[in-house]
């Protein structure tokens, strides 16, 4: 069973690299979002640095919504989903493996890119480290909540926008605590630890809840 799950994970990672260039497009989108913010607020570096953590989080949030709809829809369209369903492995475990693969190919590159984009926004080293740490802990929550939307949109030919609309409200708590922890790391009075632990807890909870809900949705919707 472990070998089968590893095969699912390895296949999805391979496919992501061969078809879409891995997390490349997500990172480019992230860069584009970060780039356009100063055009909206003006090239005022202190201001940009102040809102920097929020910009990084919004950018990462939007970028991780990209491609979410393909997680299950691609397998549904070519019949691979049927193959996944006639294995002895629980669908929940398969959904979790696909979620991990998606995070490796889209979430992790965003985390790696975040410090560089933070430089663009003039973040101090401390804020840079805090933003990257919160993204590392918070992006899995985005992916695994997104898994639910991906499963709900599985049979829709153009599910991308719908999945984003379904998932965005669910991610608000992660955004709140992620930005709060980063700001707390820079301005002393607030503790960094509390919101950081809360995102970690949200991530763990979504790691359990996401695959279960996604598997339930797939069972209901598949035809």
């Amino acid at each position, binding site marked *: 069973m472990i070998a089968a799950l590893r095969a699912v994970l390895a296949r999805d990672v391979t496919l992501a690299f061969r078809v*879409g260039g891995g997390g490349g497009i997500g990172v480019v989108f992230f860069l*584009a979002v970060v780039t356009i913010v*100063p055009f909206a607020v*003006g*090239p005022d*570096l202190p201001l940009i640095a102040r809102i920097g953590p929020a910009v990084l989080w919004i950018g990462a949030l939007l970028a991780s919504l990209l491609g979410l709809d393909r997680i299950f829809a691609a397998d549904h369209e070519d019949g691979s989903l049927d193959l996944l369903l006639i294995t002895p492995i629980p669908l929940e475990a398969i959904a979790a493996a696909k979620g991990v693969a998606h995070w490796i190919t889209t979430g992790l590159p965003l985390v790696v890119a975040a410090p560089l984009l933070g*430089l663009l926004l003039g973040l101090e080293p401390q804020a840079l480290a805090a933003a990257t740490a919160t993204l590392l802990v918070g992006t899995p929550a985005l992916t695994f909540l997104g898994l639910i939307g991906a499963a709900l949109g599985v049979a829709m030919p153009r599910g991308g926008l719908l999945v984003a609309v379904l998932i965005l409200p669910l991610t608000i708590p992660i955004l709140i605590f992620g930005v709060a922890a980063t700001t707390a790391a820079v301005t002393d009075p607030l503790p960094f630890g509390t919101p950081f632990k809360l995102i970690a807890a949200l991530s763990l909870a979504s790691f359990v809840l996401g695959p279960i809900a996604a598997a339930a949705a797939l069972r209901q919707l598949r035809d």
Partner: protein
Amino acid sequence: MALLDLANPHRFLALARAFIPTLALIAAVLLALGLVLGFRAPPDYQQGETVRIMFIHVPAAWIALGAYSLMAISTLGTLVWRHPLADVAAKAAAPIGAAFCLLCLVTGALWGRPMWGAYWVWDARLTSVLVLFLIYLGILALWRAIEDPGQAGRAVAILTLVGFLNVPIIKFSVDWWNTLHQPASVFRAGGPTIHPALLTPLVITAAGFGALFLALHLAAMRNEILRRRVRSLRLIAAADVEAR
């Protein structure tokens, strides 16, 4: 007629074989010379020693812009004359141009830190290069996204041309945005008041970068032609097994 002769990939490959080593040699000599002259040049009275970063930064920006112009012209060749080598030229130029664009951004950041106290300032020129880099990345992503080379070539051609027409508009709007918000405190990089002792290494390095770009571009075009040959042979082979 010369253009039509080049349309023959065999002739192009022979040409590439002859030109690539020559260009690479010219590039190596010019870059070595530029390096020596660049390190020997006197420090700038205003920017001190960091002006040496300019010898890479500014030529990299020129090559990035030049590569994009070359892509735009090649794309016209794809769309208007349907020249078979045009989209090969456009595809080969994209990653190289993007790399020079990245080099320009990285050296800009390393120059900016000692000069402005920050790795990045939203200066009009730097920001325009960043937008150019984004357009490059979009073009690269589109090349990767479409499997069939002919179809990908036409799609990228349209994107490249739209981007090309947009670049002056972006440049103008970024300048306008910048002057609207920015006090004149931002230091203007380069500019026309450059000391002649600094101009020589700059021009030589730029020429070296140009030769390097041409060598890499020809080599990448050759790779692309080979890649397409491999692809079409594989398709033939798959069909052969079918007809067996």
